[in-house]
């Protein structure tokens, strides 16, 4: 596995324009497959319009201690994009007034932002109903300075959502890097010890599953049952829910699909699995994604493709919920990733 981001390697796919070109040409241009717009129009659901804002997702930076093969952020230790305290303050002003009930912090590894803990402390005072931190787990055990994070999360009643691609070491390490599985298990044990993920515990611990290759996730409930059984039996680890998330064909996963000659088959599978019912619940309609430098996007994927919201309110400094709730969602062929089968979102299946 490459240990550097596409950006550091000066790979052409680090350029979002190049990614969008690939997604619009080839099998979509030739008419072999319907474009996303054409598929959605078949059931008169195009253009997709935003609804009431429910989730504010803030990306605190692209720096990460891992370099996962499928990462749509192209995150890694070599990424320098980090949200400043000033932008965080602008976010806090929005959190105080927004009607969103969920605050969702992501990255990179959001914990690597030097102002992460200050931001969590300030944001938790506002009284958001569901305060999520997306943790890659290994960050907790990577350095002494992060060992207290389970206690810190508990103190601020943070809902921890963690990545875990498989219940076995082999498949986990192949996707996320050598040693990731054992470090993740150690971090899950630390979270369980303080009460996270235990039956009836209010300290929510959910896991995110991404397929470790060019295939779609299977039935979410079936996978959750298998994860629960294996992690309990093998490591005495417990968690609440599993979110099965489809890998979207952008950034490093797009690079992998092309290099492994799986791109056309994968896109065909996504298009074949297109489910108009999933369009009704796609997360972009109730989410705003904020980038490290304060720009606003329909979702984290559009953020990585540099597709800013189609609204006069484009930046956290000029955040206007009324305007944003009337916007049209920007789409391209990557959106098939969220509408395949039972659908996919940062909260897993949507149908």
């Amino acid at each position: 596995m490459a240990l550097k981001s596409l950006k550091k390697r000066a790979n052409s796919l680090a350029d979002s324009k190049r990614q969008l070109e690939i997604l619009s040409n080839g099998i979509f241009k030739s008419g072999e497959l319907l474009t996303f717009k054409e598929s959605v129009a078949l059931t008169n659901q195009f253009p997709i319009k935003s609804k009431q804002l429910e989730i504010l997702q803030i990306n605190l930076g692209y720096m990460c201690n891992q370099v996962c093969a499928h990462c749509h952020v192209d995150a890694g230790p070599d990424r320098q994009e980090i949200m400043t305290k000033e932008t965080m303050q602008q976010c806090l002003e929005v959190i105080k007034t927004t009607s969103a009930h969920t605050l969702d912090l992501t990255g990179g590894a959001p914990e690597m932002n030097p102002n992460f803990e200050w931001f969590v402390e300030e944001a938790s005072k506002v009284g958001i109903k569901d305060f999520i931190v997306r943790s890659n787990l290994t960050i907790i055990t990577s350095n002494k300075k992060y060992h207290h994070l389970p206690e810190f999360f508990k103190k601020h009643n943070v809902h921890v959502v963690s990545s875990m691609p498989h219940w076995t070491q082999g498949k986990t390490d192949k996707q996320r890097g050598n040693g990731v599985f054992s470090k993740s298990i150690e971090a899950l044990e630390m979270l369980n010890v303080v009460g996270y993920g235990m039956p009836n515990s209010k300290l929510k611990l959910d896991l995110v599953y991404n397929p470790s290759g060019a295939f779609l996730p299977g039935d979410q409930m079936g996978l959750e049952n298998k994860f629960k059984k294996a992690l309990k039996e093998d490591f005495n680890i417990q968690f609440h829910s599993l979110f099965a998330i489809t890998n979207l064909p952008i950034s490093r996963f797009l690079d992998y699909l092309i290099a492994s000659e799986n791109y056309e088959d994968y896109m065909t599978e996504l298009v074949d699995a297109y489910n108009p019912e999933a369009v009704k619940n796609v997360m972009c309609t109730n989410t705003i994604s904020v980038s490290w430098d304060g720009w606003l996007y329909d979702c984290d994927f559009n953020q990585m493709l540099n597709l800013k919201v189609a609204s006069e309110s484009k930046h956290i400094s000029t955040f206007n919920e009324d305007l944003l709730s009337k916007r049209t969602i920007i789409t391209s062929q990557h959106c098939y990733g969220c509408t395949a089968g039972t659908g996919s979102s940062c909260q897993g299946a949507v149908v």
Partner: protein
Amino acid sequence: MSKTYYDPADLRKFGKITDWSKDLGEKFFEYYGKVFEEGALTAREKSLIALAVAHTEQCPYCIDAYTKDGLQRGVTKEEMMEAIHVGAAIKSGATLVHGVQMMNKVNKLDM
């Protein structure tokens, strides 16, 4: 262009068999779908059985389909290979158990 009897793209067209025999085709797919639902066996167990049978039947479409199905269900490569060995063992066992018939015949005919 080289031509072969099997084209991976044909798997996507499987549903088209209904075009020329609607009633029977639809009944087959309804039955097929029902068979693979969760039941006394889990859908995961059924997927592994299908993978083993796909190999004993030597059906390339089925091998592609149930390898991917297994990956989607989180089935590991070790589990897949063991399932295939079950199929192989039954195949070779079925050959060898006929050896008893051969032995019976020899014992009857041979002085």
